[in-house]
């Protein structure tokens, strides 16, 4: 069953990719959607077995690399953690496959698109089911590759190509950390298999390493390196720049890869390695701070963006920040819970925005929309469900997971924890404001599009709406239904079993009432506020941005990260490259090396040839000089 689950998407991808031309667009769409749906069904069955029977299994498919003491297998590991990921990945993937049939209906390259989607699913599955770091890395790079293909799917768009390369290269920076982490693990433990590594962790707790002249504990270094990898994949601050640009890809891609699955791989990595991270309080604090900062940073940027997809992208970035700081305060299960619920409502929001973009014929600017809620009633309602779930409206899924994060951060009881809880509450408010801004600007107010008439706007076809409805059901109920399973105190031992390690049992105190109530209250209050700001009194935000120009520019330009990186990394690499090539290679090495030597020899031989002048008296003179020199030499010595 595990093997079928894993390889069905691969078979689908190969079929659609290589034989798409022969079997036709429709069949490739049906085959890929069908195969991935079966995978989803199988993972639900597995998930059920894990819940009921604590099912665990590790299927070794084949051996991969055996070099010296390095032995790595291709394997499928099923435990509580991977079963959750399996459900998220295959379920969202299946829905996105089906949705794409409608969304990509005008595209000439459907089989290729479906093949990439299925291939991505396969790569993501190898990532989550790995039992060692190397296969994880294979999946890690595999999803990065598919992401590259899918962002650059519309290969004629220069911006899409640039975004694709940016995504790949920025991810490589993160991978750099991950790979070094893996090397260090292999170096210290002589193996890269999870179980063997995790067993040996307590033995190296006090081991020091000398790194660049600094003494650092081995375990801290491992964790920091692994976390750098996680930051790249999960678009945390400093390595986040690729995610907003990645919105150049088709919208179903954004929903699948850049919201629900691939970007959560970093969170998954941290949770999977909880047996290591638990021993490194330093790294956990770093994770908390990075996560919190990202959550806040991305939310502020989302407030002022005008591209509907970029708003949601920054929102994703921000929510990933929440997951990280949950992991950072040691509440790995809560991080997984938020990952789980987030997959539903964020995929819903992305696919919903796709439906809007589809209706507006590829318009993405929210200032070019408005007042279409009657024209797009289903999309409107579904988007509102998604927004409510995202903002943490009481009893929807985001409510359970996000509030739990803030509570656990508070209960952590250290400075980083309090700080994170405070920032978490404030960010929740920002989240609510930018989300409602999106809804109001898109669906309410006045119709602002001058390219097409409002009469031309039509609701999306049923094949696109059904996945949305299913996701909406998830967004409403996932939190309520699964909260006991994921985050109750018994679950830490019962459901998660060995897949997550808690060095100290989670704090089971009840947080004070005010911290439980503050977030929902703020969220509820923000709805009328947003309504006032973006519908009733639209001048107010404009005035505010006019009077605070520097702040506004700072936010609109995304804290100037792109500009900074462009100068520091891209332009300087190009300049150095040019310098090495034009100056060092050509003007120094060649000039003094081969060309210099050959011209020197030519020169010398030209001079030497002048000795052969043919005049007897010159030769006689030379003989005389030579003779006298020889004599002098003999006499003196």
């Amino acid at each position, binding site marked *: 069953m595990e093997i079928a689950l894993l390889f069905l998407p691969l078979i689908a991808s190969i079929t659609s990719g290589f034989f798409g031309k022969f079997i036709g667009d429709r069949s490739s769409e049906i085959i890929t959607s069908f195969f991935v749906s079966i995978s989803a069904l199988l993972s639900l069955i597995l998930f059920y077995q894990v819940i009921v029977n604590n099912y665990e299994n590790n299927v070794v498919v084949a051996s991969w690399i055996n*070099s010296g003491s390095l032995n790595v297998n291709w394997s499928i590991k099923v435990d509580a953690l991977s079963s959750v990921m399996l459900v998220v990945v295959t379920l969202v993937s299946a829905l996105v496959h089906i949705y794409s049939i409608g969304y990509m209906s005008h595209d000439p390259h459907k089989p290729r698109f479906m093949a990439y989607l299925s291939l991505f699913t396969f790569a993501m599955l190898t990532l989550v089911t790995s039992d060692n770091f190397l296969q994880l890395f294979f999946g890690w790079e595999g999803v990065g590759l598919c992401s590259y293909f899918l962002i*650059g799917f519309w290969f004629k768009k220069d911006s899409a190509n640039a975004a694709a390369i940016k995504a790949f290269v920025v991810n490589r920076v993160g991978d750099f950390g991950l790979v070094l982490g893996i090397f260090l693990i292999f170096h210290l433990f002589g193996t890269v298999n999870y179980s063997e590594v995790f067993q040996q962790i307590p033995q190296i707790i006090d081991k020091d390493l000398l790194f660049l002249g600094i003494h650092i504990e081995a375990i801290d270094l491992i964790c920091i390196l692994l976390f750098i990898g996680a930051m790249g994949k999960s678009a945390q601050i400093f390595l986040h720049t690729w995610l907003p640009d990645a919105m150049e890809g088709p919208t179903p891609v954004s929903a699948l890869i850049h919201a629900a699955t691939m970007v959560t791989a970093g969170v998954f990595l941290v949770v999977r390695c909880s047996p290591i991270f638990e021993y490194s309080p330093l790294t956990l604090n770093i994770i908390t701070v990075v996560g919190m900062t990202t959550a806040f940073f991305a939310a502020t940027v989302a407030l002022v963006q005008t591209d509907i997809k970029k708003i949601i992208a920054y929102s994703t970035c921000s929510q990933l920040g929440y997951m990280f700081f949950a992991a950072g305060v040691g509440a790995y299960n809560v991080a997984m819970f938020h990952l789980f619920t987030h997959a539903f409502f964020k995929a819903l929001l992305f696919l919903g925005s796709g439906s809007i973009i589809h209706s507006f014929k590829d318009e993405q600017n929210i200032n070019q929309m408005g007042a279409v809620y009657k024209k797009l009633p289903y999309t409107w309602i579904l988007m509102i469900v998604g927004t409510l779930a995202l903002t943490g409206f009481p009893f929807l899924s985001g409510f359970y997971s996000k509030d739990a994060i803030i509570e656990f951060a508070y209960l952590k009881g250290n400075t980083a924890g309090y700080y994170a809880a405070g920032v978490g509450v404030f960010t929740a408010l920002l989240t609510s404001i930018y989300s409602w801004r999106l809804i109001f600007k898109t669906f309410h107010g006045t119709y602002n599009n001058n390219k097409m008439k409002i009469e031309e706007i039509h609701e999306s076809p049923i094949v696109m709406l059904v996945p949305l409805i299913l996701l909406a059901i998830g967004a409403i109920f996932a939190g309520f239904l699964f909260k006991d399973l994921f985050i109750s105190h018994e679950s830490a031992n019962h459901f998660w079993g060995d897949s997550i390690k808690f060095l100290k049992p989670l704090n089971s105190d009840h947080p004070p009432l005010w911290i439980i109530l503050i977030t929902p209250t703020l969220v509820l209050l923000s709805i009328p506020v947003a309504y006032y700001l973006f519908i009733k009194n639209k001048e107010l935000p404009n005035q505010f941005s006019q009077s605070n120009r520097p702040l506004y520019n700072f936010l609109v330009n995304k804290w100037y990260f792109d500009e900074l990186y462009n100068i520091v990394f891209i332009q300087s690499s190009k300049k150095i*490259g040019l310098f090495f090539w034009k100056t060092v290679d050509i003007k120094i090495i*060649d000039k003094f090396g081969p060309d210099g030597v050959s011209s020197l020899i030519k020169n010398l031989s030209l001079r030497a040839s002048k000795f052969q002048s043919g005049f007897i008296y010159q030769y006689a003179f030379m003989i005389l000089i030579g003779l006298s020199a020889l004599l002098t030499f003999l006499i003196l010595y």
Partner: protein
Amino acid sequence: MNFPILSSLILLPTIGALFLLFSKDKNSNTAKYVALFTSFINFLISIYLWYLFDPSTSSFQFIEDRIWLEGFVNYKVGIDGISILFIVLTTFITPLCIISVNNTVKVRLRHFLIAILIMESLMIGVFCSLDLVVFYLFFEAGLIPMFLIIGIWGGTRRVYSAFKFFLYTLVGSVLMLVAIISIYWIAGTTDIIQLYELSLDIKYQNLLWLAFFSSFAVKTPMWPFHTWLPDAHVEAPTAGSVLLAAILLKMAGYGFIRFSLGLFPVASELFTPLIYILSLIAILYASLVALMQEDMKKLIAYSSVAHMGFVTLGIFTITQQGIEGSIIQMISHGLVSAALFLCVGVVYDRMHSRLINTYGGIVSVMPKYSILFMLFTLAALGLPGTSGFIGEFLVLMGAFKDNFLVAVIASLGVILGAAYMLWLYRRVVFGNLVNKDLLKIPDLDNSEKFILWSLAIPVLFLGFYPEPLINTIEVSVKDLIEMYNFNLNMYSQEVKK
């Protein structure tokens, strides 16, 4: 020893070449079939050899020993796990080169094929000779056909490039010749197996090591001896570039493993920091330069310098992973760089331009080509699932064991590798099709498809299942490292005394 299988591997292409030389039939197609047939038979023999080869021992196999110059040099050949792979690589690449000449070489095809076949003989000779003088002869003689290939069938600046290539490598090798002669005077033999057993006097090792290094460093090429490579590649015809990148460069890596480590362990240990520094410079420097190239062939040439930087780095880590990684990296680079040069050749034949900005958007006219080119691009940047990954990963792992900082810096090259390869691909293949001349060009024809797929399949296969390679080299590498460490220990004990 009954049948001289190695000698027949060496001689068969030469016999084919002689046949071509004296044949009266001037039809170039016949010549091509003869060459193809010869090299293909040679490939089959080498596969059979690989099959016969016993990977469980590191001692040399299939040894042939004939007196050549009485009391001085014996013609001695034999293989171990390391050499067999390079022989198979050579016999695998050569037929593909011969198929590819279809479109590239318009004049004197027969002579071109003769040059390639002789080249094949000499390169096989390099990888199986067990005597320093024999090795030197093969190693140097390989220059001549390559010199002719660049100088006669090359591009506009072919004469400059051919001379630069020839003289540069010759200067390096002359020192090696001096070293070989002095080894004969010091040790009384040039037989490699005997030399392995008696360790050379410490006081000579450093100088000898440097002499060998000067030859191998030019051939690898290591920074700062690399400037001949971009010129040579740019001017060489496609088949020449392929041979140069896929096999000629590997002779140096092979030489480092076989001679520098094998004969001069103490000196190798002493000079390891030098190699590390030059390798790191090669990786970063060449990657940055590659980023800025406007000529596709030059870009790939510089990327070769970077990839060979990983090879030299891995060899001198003296770890199982590092050396195995280096060998796999060499095999992988042999396949991938050959494929990339062929990819450039494919569009060059159609457009007669190597400049990147001539192209752009060719995915709409050449979809099949684009898929294969993408695959090799990914292999070149070391994506898991391709052979490029296994090599790079093992090298870095080995380096990490030895020196943390070196591994960190070398890993930066992996990021740059992704940048320059993907940027190249994007500018050539993606984007809007602006140049209207591109609209007329056809997609891959059958022979091009055959060549590129024959390279693609092993690249993928070895990415998922490198076992056949690792199995073959494992014992040889292990014993090499043991011998190396044994000699080092002997030396340090002597020093203590």
